[in-house]
């Protein structure tokens, strides 16, 4: 597969810098704001916000598949070490699971919206709580890979190439 990619730079990447953390802006922000707008919409009886939530949720679902594509390529080039290995495994597993959860929730939401866009059952709010929790766990794992283990950062890649890690 590496034959298909341009040569690797000092981030051990075929492109300037990691793309996965940029794509996940749109998964994290849209999924969380969707849950928040649902909550505000129910509490303040503002059904307008349910429409805003729906579109944000749909966008998060589209974005997560793009995030996974780049995530898989960059994980394959990350050369995790020590405990980062199991963190990356868990991050990948939850990432794929989140794609399933987001798709299911979006499908459910599509049906709810088709039937009555002005109301939202409490069961969907509860599902939103589960979604937000999963996102927070996933973000924490991703944070550890970059901010603790420094995967794809120049100093760590240099140390790896020198055989020090």
């Amino acid at each position, binding site marked *: 597969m590496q034959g298909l990619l341009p040569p690797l730079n000092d981030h051990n990447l075929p492109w300037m810098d990691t793309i996965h953390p940029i794509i996940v802006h*749109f998964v994290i922000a849209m999924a969380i*704001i969707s849950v928040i*707008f649902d909550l505000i919409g129910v509490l303040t009886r503002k059904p307008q916000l349910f429409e*805003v939530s729906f*579109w944000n949720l749909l966008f998060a679902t589209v974005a997560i598949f793009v995030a996974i594509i780049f995530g898989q390529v960059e994980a394959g080039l990350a050369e995790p070490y020590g405990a980062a290995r199991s963190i990356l495994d868990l991050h990948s597993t939850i990432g794929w699971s989140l794609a399933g959860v987001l798709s299911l929730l979006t499908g459910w939401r599509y049906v709810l919206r*088709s039937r009555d866009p002005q109301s939202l059952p409490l069961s969907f709010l509860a599902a939103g709580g589960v979604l937000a929790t999963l996102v927070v766990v996933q973000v924490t794992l991703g*944070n*550890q890979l970059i901010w603790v283990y420094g995967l794809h*950062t120049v100093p760590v890649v240099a140390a790896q190439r020198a055989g020090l890690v």
Partner: protein
Amino acid sequence: MLSPLLLMAGGSPLHPLLATAVVPADSPISQLVPSLGANDLPYALPIHPNLVHFTIGLFVIAIAFDIAGALYPVEKRVFRFLALPITRSGFHDVGWYNLLACAIVTFFTVAAGFFEMLLAVPIAGVTSTIGLQSMETMLWHGVGGVVILLVIVLMTVWRGYQRFVWRKDLGRQVQWLYLLVAMGIFLVIGLHGTLGAELAAEFGVHITADQLLASGQNLRDALP
């Protein structure tokens, strides 16, 4: 770029006070050392980069949906084909509420950014991919961050006037100029984000592994 200005301040005998300025050996950051970890923060994972997800995600999607609302006459057939019921006002609702949320959260993004930049210890002797040193990168990213916060707040006020006053009764809730300015801001945010990414991935700011390596430690022992 900032470099000539800094060179004048640091290198030439332009101003005697500036030329002889010295950084005290006992930097004020040392007062906090007992409470800081290997990543130079009092906690394991930095906050600013996580709030950035919301600033960028909300801004970009707000504008994207206002573009969708503006181009509604073109795309409505596509959505009918997809059996996805849409309303123009629904798209513009996303454009407004996402931008409002962006403006609110960005105050915290910038505040967290300043806290963490005050504690930043960039790896010495590094020049970034776009050719800046660490202090230049931090100055551009810090001052730029405040400017972008101001711009986002102004855009939100502009968007609010369009929604509630000027274009209240119109189908297309935003001016073309608004969308054009927003696309310009995309470019600025992209460049700004690149500087932030370089502070992490090249200068190793607040990255435990990078800081341990810079202090000469072996990751096999220090970070098993």
